[in-house]
Protein backbone atom coordinates (compact mmCIF):
# COMPACT_ATOMS: atom_id res chain seq x y z
CA UNK A 1 0.00 0.00 0.00
CA UNK A 2 1.78 3.16 -1.14
CA UNK A 3 1.58 6.56 0.50
CA UNK A 4 -1.06 7.88 -1.91
CA UNK A 5 -3.37 4.90 -1.35
CA UNK A 6 -2.88 5.16 2.39
CA UNK A 7 -3.73 8.87 2.27
CA UNK A 8 -6.87 8.18 0.25
CA UNK A 9 -7.92 5.48 2.70
CA UNK A 10 -7.41 7.90 5.57
CA UNK A 11 -9.47 10.58 3.79
CA UNK A 12 -12.32 8.16 3.15
CA UNK A 13 -12.17 6.96 6.75
CA UNK A 14 -12.24 10.49 8.15
CA UNK A 15 -15.10 11.46 5.84
CA UNK A 16 -17.04 8.37 6.94
CA UNK A 17 -16.56 9.25 10.59
CA UNK A 18 -17.64 12.85 9.99
CA UNK A 19 -20.70 11.72 8.06
CA UNK A 20 -21.72 9.40 10.88
CA UNK A 21 -21.26 12.15 13.44
CA UNK A 22 -23.33 14.49 11.28
CA UNK A 23 -26.10 11.92 10.99
CA UNK A 24 -26.27 11.26 14.69
CA UNK A 25 -26.23 14.93 15.70
CA UNK A 26 -28.87 16.13 13.21
CA UNK A 27 -31.43 13.44 13.86
CA UNK A 28 -30.88 13.33 17.59
CA UNK A 29 -31.61 17.04 17.64
CA UNK A 30 -34.86 16.93 15.66
CA UNK A 31 -35.94 13.83 17.55
CA UNK A 32 -35.43 15.78 20.77
CA UNK A 33 -37.59 18.66 19.49
CA UNK A 34 -40.37 16.28 18.40
CA UNK A 35 -40.21 14.20 21.60
CA UNK A 36 -40.46 17.36 23.71
CA UNK A 37 -43.49 18.59 21.76
CA UNK A 38 -45.19 15.22 22.07
CA UNK A 39 -44.50 15.05 25.79
CA UNK A 40 -46.12 18.45 26.20
CA UNK A 41 -49.06 17.40 24.01
CA UNK A 42 -48.60 20.10 21.38
CA UNK A 43 -47.37 20.35 17.80
CA UNK A 44 -43.85 21.57 17.07
CA UNK A 45 -44.06 25.32 17.59
CA UNK A 46 -43.50 27.93 14.89
CA UNK A 47 -40.46 29.19 16.81
CA UNK A 48 -38.92 25.72 16.82
CA UNK A 49 -39.68 25.36 13.12
CA UNK A 50 -38.13 28.77 12.46
CA UNK A 51 -34.98 27.70 14.28
CA UNK A 52 -34.75 24.47 12.27
CA UNK A 53 -35.42 26.40 9.05
CA UNK A 54 -32.68 28.92 9.83
CA UNK A 55 -30.26 26.10 10.57
CA UNK A 56 -31.16 24.40 7.29
CA UNK A 57 -30.50 27.60 5.32
CA UNK A 58 -27.23 28.16 7.20
CA UNK A 59 -26.13 24.59 6.41
CA UNK A 60 -26.82 25.12 2.71
CA UNK A 61 -24.87 28.39 2.73
CA UNK A 62 -21.98 26.84 4.63
CA UNK A 63 -21.83 23.92 2.21
CA UNK A 64 -21.64 26.32 -0.74
CA UNK A 65 -18.69 28.09 0.88
CA UNK A 66 -16.92 24.91 2.05
Amino acid at each position, binding site marked *: *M*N*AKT*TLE*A*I*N*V*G*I*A*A*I*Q*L*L*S*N*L*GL*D*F*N*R*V*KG*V*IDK*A*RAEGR*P*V*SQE*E*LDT*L*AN*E*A*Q*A*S*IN*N*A*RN*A
Partner: protein
Amino acid sequence: MNTVQQQRWANIVGVIVLLAALLGFEITDEQKGALITVFSLIGLVINQYFGERLKNEPAVVEESPLVNRQQGSAKIAALVFAMLASILAVGITTSVGCANTAIVQVQPRNMSEGLALAYSAISHIAGDVAILKQGGLITNEDANEILDELQSMYDDLGRIRALPVSEGELQLASLEAILRQLQIEILRRKGALE
Protein backbone atom coordinates in the same frame (compact mmCIF):
# COMPACT_ATOMS: atom_id res chain seq x y z
CA MET B 1 2.27 -14.22 -1.50
CA ASN B 2 4.69 -12.57 0.92
CA THR B 3 3.88 -11.08 4.30
CA VAL B 4 3.47 -7.54 2.97
CA GLN B 5 0.98 -8.70 0.34
CA GLN B 6 -0.94 -10.80 2.87
CA GLN B 7 -1.11 -7.86 5.22
CA ARG B 8 -2.23 -5.56 2.43
CA TRP B 9 -5.04 -7.91 1.43
CA ALA B 10 -6.09 -8.30 5.04
CA ASN B 11 -6.42 -4.52 5.30
CA ILE B 12 -8.34 -4.23 2.03
CA VAL B 13 -10.78 -6.97 3.04
CA GLY B 14 -11.19 -5.39 6.46
CA VAL B 15 -12.01 -1.97 5.01
CA ILE B 16 -14.49 -3.49 2.52
CA VAL B 17 -16.24 -5.42 5.28
CA LEU B 18 -16.43 -2.30 7.43
CA LEU B 19 -17.86 -0.18 4.61
CA ALA B 20 -20.32 -2.92 3.69
CA ALA B 21 -21.43 -3.16 7.30
CA LEU B 22 -21.83 0.61 7.42
CA LEU B 23 -23.56 1.22 4.14
CA GLY B 24 -25.01 -1.92 2.68
CA PHE B 25 -26.87 -4.22 4.97
CA GLU B 26 -30.38 -3.67 6.28
CA ILE B 27 -29.56 -4.32 9.92
CA THR B 28 -30.17 -2.41 13.12
CA ASP B 29 -27.69 0.08 14.54
CA GLU B 30 -26.97 -2.23 17.46
CA GLN B 31 -26.14 -5.04 15.04
CA LYS B 32 -23.94 -2.70 13.00
CA GLY B 33 -22.12 -1.66 16.16
CA ALA B 34 -21.60 -5.25 17.25
CA LEU B 35 -20.47 -6.31 13.77
CA ILE B 36 -17.96 -3.52 13.43
CA THR B 37 -16.65 -4.05 16.95
CA VAL B 38 -16.04 -7.73 16.19
CA PHE B 39 -14.29 -6.93 12.91
CA SER B 40 -12.27 -4.19 14.59
CA LEU B 41 -11.00 -6.69 17.13
CA ILE B 42 -10.22 -9.18 14.36
CA GLY B 43 -8.43 -6.40 12.48
CA LEU B 44 -6.36 -5.53 15.52
CA VAL B 45 -5.39 -9.19 15.99
CA ILE B 46 -4.52 -9.60 12.30
CA ASN B 47 -2.44 -6.46 12.26
CA GLN B 48 -0.68 -7.45 15.45
CA TYR B 49 0.06 -10.88 13.96
CA PHE B 50 1.47 -9.48 10.73
CA GLY B 51 3.33 -6.79 12.63
CA GLU B 52 5.12 -9.51 14.60
CA ARG B 53 5.88 -11.43 11.42
CA LEU B 54 7.32 -8.30 9.80
CA LYS B 55 9.63 -7.88 12.76
CA ASN B 56 10.93 -11.43 12.18
CA GLU B 57 12.00 -10.79 8.59
CA PRO B 58 15.13 -8.64 9.06
CA ALA B 59 17.10 -10.21 6.21
CA VAL B 60 14.67 -9.10 3.54
CA VAL B 61 14.38 -5.69 5.11
CA GLU B 62 18.12 -5.15 5.13
CA GLU B 63 18.70 -6.40 1.62
CA SER B 64 16.04 -4.46 -0.21
CA PRO B 65 15.33 -0.76 0.41
CA LEU B 66 12.18 -1.09 -1.72
CA VAL B 67 10.78 -3.94 0.36
CA ASN B 68 11.88 -2.12 3.49
CA ARG B 69 9.88 0.91 2.40
CA GLN B 70 6.87 -1.26 1.50
CA GLN B 71 6.96 -2.92 4.87
CA GLY B 72 7.19 0.45 6.54
CA SER B 73 4.12 1.62 4.60
CA ALA B 74 2.35 -1.60 5.46
CA LYS B 75 3.03 -1.08 9.14
CA ILE B 76 1.69 2.48 8.96
CA ALA B 77 -1.34 1.26 7.02
CA ALA B 78 -1.92 -1.44 9.62
CA LEU B 79 -1.85 1.11 12.41
CA VAL B 80 -4.14 3.48 10.51
CA PHE B 81 -6.56 0.66 9.76
CA ALA B 82 -6.65 -0.47 13.36
CA MET B 83 -7.16 3.11 14.53
CA LEU B 84 -9.94 3.82 12.03
CA ALA B 85 -11.66 0.52 12.78
CA SER B 86 -11.64 1.27 16.49
CA ILE B 87 -12.91 4.83 16.00
CA LEU B 88 -15.63 3.61 13.64
CA ALA B 89 -16.70 0.97 16.13
CA VAL B 90 -17.01 3.56 18.87
CA GLY B 91 -18.72 6.01 16.52
CA ILE B 92 -21.30 3.50 15.36
CA THR B 93 -22.13 2.16 18.77
CA THR B 94 -22.55 5.61 20.28
CA SER B 95 -24.40 7.15 17.36
CA VAL B 96 -28.15 6.80 17.34
CA GLY B 97 -27.95 5.89 13.74
CA CYS B 98 -28.05 6.49 10.08
CA ALA B 99 -30.62 8.55 8.23
CA ASN B 100 -32.67 5.62 7.00
CA THR B 101 -33.35 4.23 10.44
CA ALA B 102 -33.76 7.70 11.97
CA ILE B 103 -36.41 8.72 9.47
CA VAL B 104 -38.20 5.42 10.01
CA GLN B 105 -37.95 5.74 13.79
CA VAL B 106 -39.32 9.28 13.87
CA GLN B 107 -42.57 8.95 11.98
CA PRO B 108 -44.21 12.39 11.78
CA ARG B 109 -47.67 12.48 13.35
CA ASN B 110 -48.66 15.88 12.09
CA MET B 111 -47.71 18.68 9.75
CA SER B 112 -45.32 20.46 12.08
CA GLU B 113 -43.37 17.27 12.84
CA GLY B 114 -43.08 16.55 9.12
CA LEU B 115 -41.75 20.05 8.53
CA ALA B 116 -39.28 19.69 11.40
CA LEU B 117 -37.97 16.43 9.96
CA ALA B 118 -37.71 17.89 6.48
CA TYR B 119 -35.74 20.94 7.67
CA SER B 120 -33.47 18.67 9.69
CA ALA B 121 -32.91 16.40 6.69
CA ILE B 122 -31.91 19.42 4.59
CA SER B 123 -29.42 20.52 7.27
CA HIS B 124 -28.06 17.02 7.47
CA ILE B 125 -27.58 16.52 3.73
CA ALA B 126 -26.07 19.99 3.29
CA GLY B 127 -23.62 19.18 6.09
CA ASP B 128 -22.70 15.93 4.36
CA VAL B 129 -22.15 17.74 1.07
CA ALA B 130 -19.73 20.08 2.84
CA ILE B 131 -17.85 17.11 4.32
CA LEU B 132 -17.68 15.32 0.97
CA LYS B 133 -16.45 18.52 -0.73
CA GLN B 134 -13.74 19.05 1.86
CA GLY B 135 -12.66 15.42 1.57
CA GLY B 136 -12.43 15.67 -2.21
CA LEU B 137 -15.01 12.91 -2.59
CA ILE B 138 -17.43 14.96 -4.67
CA THR B 139 -16.89 17.56 -7.39
CA ASN B 140 -17.94 21.18 -6.91
CA GLU B 141 -20.41 20.80 -9.78
CA ASP B 142 -22.09 17.79 -8.18
CA ALA B 143 -22.11 19.53 -4.81
CA ASN B 144 -23.72 22.65 -6.27
CA GLU B 145 -26.32 20.54 -8.06
CA ILE B 146 -27.34 18.85 -4.80
CA LEU B 147 -27.32 22.16 -2.94
CA ASP B 148 -29.52 23.75 -5.61
CA GLU B 149 -32.00 20.91 -5.14
CA LEU B 150 -31.87 21.35 -1.39
CA GLN B 151 -32.45 25.09 -1.74
CA SER B 152 -35.44 24.35 -3.96
CA MET B 153 -36.84 21.95 -1.35
CA TYR B 154 -36.22 24.51 1.36
CA ASP B 155 -38.18 27.13 -0.60
CA ASP B 156 -40.99 24.61 -1.16
CA LEU B 157 -41.19 23.99 2.58
CA GLY B 158 -41.59 27.73 3.16
CA ARG B 159 -44.48 27.80 0.69
CA ILE B 160 -46.08 24.74 2.31
CA ARG B 161 -45.93 26.43 5.72
CA ALA B 162 -47.84 29.39 4.27
CA LEU B 163 -50.69 27.27 2.91
CA PRO B 164 -54.01 27.26 4.81
CA VAL B 165 -54.74 24.29 7.07
CA SER B 166 -57.63 23.24 4.82
CA GLU B 167 -55.04 22.23 2.26
CA GLY B 168 -53.45 19.84 4.73
CA GLU B 169 -53.68 16.82 2.48
CA LEU B 170 -51.85 18.64 -0.26
CA GLN B 171 -49.25 19.79 2.22
CA LEU B 172 -48.66 16.27 3.47
CA ALA B 173 -48.41 14.90 -0.07
CA SER B 174 -45.86 17.57 -0.96
CA LEU B 175 -43.91 16.87 2.20
CA GLU B 176 -43.86 13.17 1.49
CA ALA B 177 -42.45 13.83 -1.97
CA ILE B 178 -39.78 16.10 -0.52
CA LEU B 179 -38.77 13.57 2.11
CA ARG B 180 -38.47 10.92 -0.59
CA GLN B 181 -36.20 13.19 -2.59
CA LEU B 182 -34.12 13.82 0.50
CA GLN B 183 -33.73 10.11 1.07
CA ILE B 184 -32.57 9.72 -2.53
CA GLU B 185 -29.97 12.40 -1.85
CA ILE B 186 -28.78 10.45 1.17
CA LEU B 187 -28.41 7.31 -0.94
CA ARG B 188 -26.59 9.29 -3.63
CA ARG B 189 -24.24 10.64 -1.01
CA LYS B 190 -23.51 7.13 0.21
CA GLY B 191 -22.77 6.13 -3.38
CA ALA B 192 -20.25 8.95 -3.61
CA LEU B 193 -18.50 7.64 -0.52
CA GLU B 194 -18.35 4.10 -1.89
